[in-house]
């Protein structure tokens, strides 16, 4: 038992040391060298910045504030302002890695965003740095396969089937993410990897509300290395929605369809009736003219 106590002390000491070391380390967060040098395969353009902005505003503003405004949430270690010089001083690969892996209170976004979406966010963060020049990877000798994608729905197992080919050859191990496109942005349906037949399956909740024919608009992205593909398509894989007017059955005449016949008759009879009387008078003015000769 005595020994045990000694061990406990040592363990306690080690924990304290680790804690202090950790605090020190936190102020200096380094991505692994290999990750540090990673470059974006995509040229940061306005589209990427725009998509990145939406993602940033939804997922990052709460802690990091608006870039360039220095309004991040005070915490220890501080999240920092992505527009600030210190933040921008790191490489693209480092930012990418830190968002993807997280540390401590900085959440890990690996599961929330696909790689290309992470690069969107990096593009957005970089858009606050006027001096920034994007370094693109040397693509010489690298062959980027061009993906073709085919979508279908297997209603026996309620799965979205994504097939990926490059020049008719099935592509294994491609990361696939599928989204439902809504009026106010996209919602993740699921993520999967293609098997050796180039097929990935994504679960679909069959009770999803679709349009009148049960169609929903899905968008599927596929990425592997530098290769990527995107396809958006209407697929009948959800529950058909029968649309009813909110006032159906209750209204008398405020209908969306044709005006009821009684209303048409009332309207046109009154309008034409009045105008008939007016025309009668206008033409009757001639009679006044004729009547001038009367004795």
């Amino acid at each position, binding site marked *: 038992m005595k020994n045990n106590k000694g061990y406990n002390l040592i363990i306690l000491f080690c924990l304290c040391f680790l804690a202090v070391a950790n605090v020190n380390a936190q102020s200096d967060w380094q991505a692994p060298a290999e990750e540090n040098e990673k470059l974006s395969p995509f040229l940061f353009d306005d589209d990427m910045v725009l998509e990145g902005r939406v993602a940033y505003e939804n997922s990052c503003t709460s802690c990091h504030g608006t870039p360039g405004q220095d309004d991040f949430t005070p915490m220890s270690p501080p999240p920092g302002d992505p527009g600030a010089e210190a933040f921008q001083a790191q490489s693209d690969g480092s930012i990418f890695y830190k968002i993807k892996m997280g540390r401590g209170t900085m959440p890990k976004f690996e599961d929330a965003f696909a790689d290309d979406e992470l690069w969107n966010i990096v593009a957005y963060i970089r858009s606050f740095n006027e001096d920034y020049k994007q370094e693109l990877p040397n693509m010489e000798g690298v062959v980027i396969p061009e993906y073709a994608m085919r979508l279908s729905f297997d209603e026996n197992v309620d799965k979205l089937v994504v097939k990926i080919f490059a020049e008719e050859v099935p592509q294994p191990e491609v990361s696939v993410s599928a989204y439902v496109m809504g009026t106010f942005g996209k919602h993740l349906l699921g993520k999967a990897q293609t098997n050796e037949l180039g097929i990935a399956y994504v679960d679909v909740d069959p009770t999803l509300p679709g349009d009148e024919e049960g169609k929903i608009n899905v968008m599927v992205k596929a990425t592997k290395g530098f290769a990527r593909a995107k396809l958006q398509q209407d697929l009948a894989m959800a529950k058909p929605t029968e649309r009813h007017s909110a006032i159906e059955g209750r209204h008398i*005449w*405020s209908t969306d369809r044709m005006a009821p016949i009684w209303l048409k008759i009332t309207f046109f009879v009154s309008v034409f009736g009045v105008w008939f009387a007016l025309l009668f*008078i206008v033409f009757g*003015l001639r009679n006044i003219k004729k*009547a*001038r000769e009367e004795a």
Partner: protein
Amino acid sequence: MNETITKGHFSEEQIDKDLLKNVNWGGKFKLWMGFLTVSLIICLYYYYQQLQNGLGVTGLHDYVSWGIYISNFVFFVATSLIGMLVSSVLGMMKVSWVRPVARIAELVAVAFAMVAGLIIITDMGRPDRLLNVFIHGRVQSPIVWDIAVVVTYVVISALLLYIPMLPDIALCRDKLNNVPKWQQKMYKSLSLGWNSTAKQFRLMNRYTRILLVLIIPIALSIHTVTSWLFAMTLRSGWDSPIFGPYFVSGAFVAGCAAVIIAMFFFRNNYKLKEYITADHFDRMGKLLVLVALVYVYFNINEIIVPGYKANTADAKHVHEMLYGHDSVMFWLVQLGGLVVPFLLILFKPMRKPLPLTIISLVILAGAWFKRVLIVVPTQLAPYYPIQNVPEGWTGYSPTTPEVAITVASFILVLMIITVLAKLFPVVPIWEVKEDMNHKNN
């Protein structure tokens, strides 16, 4: 009743002379028209801007898509209803004191109704698509009814101004020899060869009577339908079954005030003190008391009933009005623009020409802002919260072009009234003479 109206007894020549005096193109007229024209051109420049850049130059947005243009439209339609009340309702009841001022009321009606239609067009971002309303209009839409009745009302009012004026136009044709050629020609063709034969009078009276009957349902429906544009929408503050009569009664208040102002102006500028007497003002003041009383009653209903039930949205609306965001304007309009003037004109001295005219000006201004209070606040309180939109969209304030275009509508009304009052006698000469003969016999 008649005796109190025209004190003096004049010869027919004297009457002709007095009442035809205003038909001329004097220097004062030219100055006034010049002023109006210049102002109109300035305002039209803003409309040109709006045509070029669209409704973006106004303060309108997704939430408040009806701003002062539509408020102004409602105000104009309202004011024009007075033609119906004075010439038709009172005319058919043989209330003879209104005869000398009936034409003024009709002038006001025609001018305001004509411009009301134009205001609707200014509220359109793409006026070039106006025709689509007629081609693709849906019979079940109150907007289509509104267009139908506004157009009809303009035509009826114009006919009702024109037909009873035939004898006077003939008088102009016969007596006015020193007016420009085109004007003489105009009188000649407009007078339809009027010769004061019995048959001509019979026809004129018959047509006038048909119009007087027709105009009552048309006038009632024009403003009822205007109120339905709001009342048929499920929105707090508009969702009210008494909106029709509420609008109509408010219309008479605004119209009476407008006619009183016009009467005062013509009486002083055209030296018509013997024809439009202090007694006319007294009676118009009493008429104003009556219609204001009805309107106050409807106003109380509009607040008391939803205020008691206090369902969520209506309660919010009532609170905003009574002591919330819109309360300053609300109390200014209700007390300053309606209740206090109403109480004042209960007293006879306040119904003298000058005080009554001043009070009418206040009432008319109040009536205009009242329309803004009806139209705008409701749109700022939608059932879904206003969120994720530009900051300015939580409120509404009209921009300079919007104000200028609204001012332009008033300038147009003044121009129409001015020109018509310079082309034709503003007091019906033959009716005054008829009255006089009637009395003398």
